[in-house]
């Protein structure tokens, strides 16, 4: 009885806490000054139609670098806790006929979709994180369907480290070539024609590197979980 009273009291407390948000809500007629600066500056200064990518990669580039490092630390932690304690191999259950045929058909398309999403992040919705997750889900489909498919941890390790190093060095290139206060500024690269694939300075390259990094990290997490789940 006391438990239910406490639960109801907690819900009412939350409702009281969130009441001002609902009461004072009014539809904004125009963008706040910072947002309108982003919306106008993204096509004007950076030659980029997708404002979300402009904010993520350029205006808030340092936050993205922090996010990538947090993801790296999380992956390293998972890899440490799921390291193989026994090297005994266990029989993996093969995927069903539907799963195997579907994987043969779908995995190449999923990979191409992931590469498209991260290389066109400055033109259309999407970007490095989404494309990386799509690639990791394609690798997951291969792991589940094919028994003899082994993820090469060495390849994932190297692609992850090289893309991380290249990302930070592209940021440092902005600092060196443009000047102070321009860390992670993509404008040291030629801007190119508007709406072309290589059009927004270094942004397509940076987002592709982030995509490869996120994809290899998540694929290595999934492979570690699969290995750990198989052994006893």
């Amino acid at each position, binding site marked *: 009885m006391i438990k239910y009273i406490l639960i109801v009291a907690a819900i009412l407390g939350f409702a009281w806490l969130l009441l001002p948000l609902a009461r004072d809500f009014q539809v904004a007629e125009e963008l706040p000054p910072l947002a309108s600066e982003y919306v106008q500056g993204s096509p004007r200064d950076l030659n980029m139609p997708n404002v979300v990518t402009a904010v993520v990669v350029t205006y808030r580039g340092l936050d993205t670098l922090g996010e990538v490092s947090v993801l790296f630390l999380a992956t390293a932690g998972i890899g440490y806790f799921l390291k193989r304690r026994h090297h005994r191999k266990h029989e993996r259950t093969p995927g069903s006929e539907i799963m195997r045929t579907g994987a043969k058909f779908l995995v190449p398309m999923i990979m191409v979709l992931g590469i498209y999403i991260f290389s066109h992040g400055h033109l259309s919705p999407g970007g490095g994180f989404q494309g990386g*997750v799509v690639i990791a889900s394609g690798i997951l489909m291969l792991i589940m369907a094919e028994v003899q498919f082994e993820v090469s941890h060495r390849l994932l390790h190297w692609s992850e480290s090289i893309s991380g190093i290249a990302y930070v060095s592209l940021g440092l290139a902005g600092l060196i070539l443009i000047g102070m206060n321009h860390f992670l500024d993509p404008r040291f690269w030629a801007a190119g024609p508007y709406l072309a694939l290589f059009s927004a300075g270094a942004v397509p390259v940076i987002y592709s590197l982030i995509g490869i990094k996120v994809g290899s990290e998540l694929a290595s997490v999934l492979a570690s979980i699969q290995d750990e789940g198989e052994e006893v």
Partner: protein
Amino acid sequence: MFDQIAMVVLGLISLAAAIYAMYAKRVLSAVIASGVISLMASIMFLIAAAPDVAMTEATIGAGLTTVIFLYALKHIRSRKGDKHD
């Protein structure tokens, strides 16, 4: 108007899935219901004109998180099986 109706319907579906996930007998059904919540949230983001967030929610929330829950479930079951055998 259609957008608001769709938002309310999707919100009600995700509420129902959340309540079902709490009271479901099988853990597997609860995991799938939590995936449904993420899917509904991603459609709601799409209606609210945020396709980037919708894409992230659909791939991570509905895809990877569900798969990781399923792997964890499988792992717990194999551990339990060992003790009983």
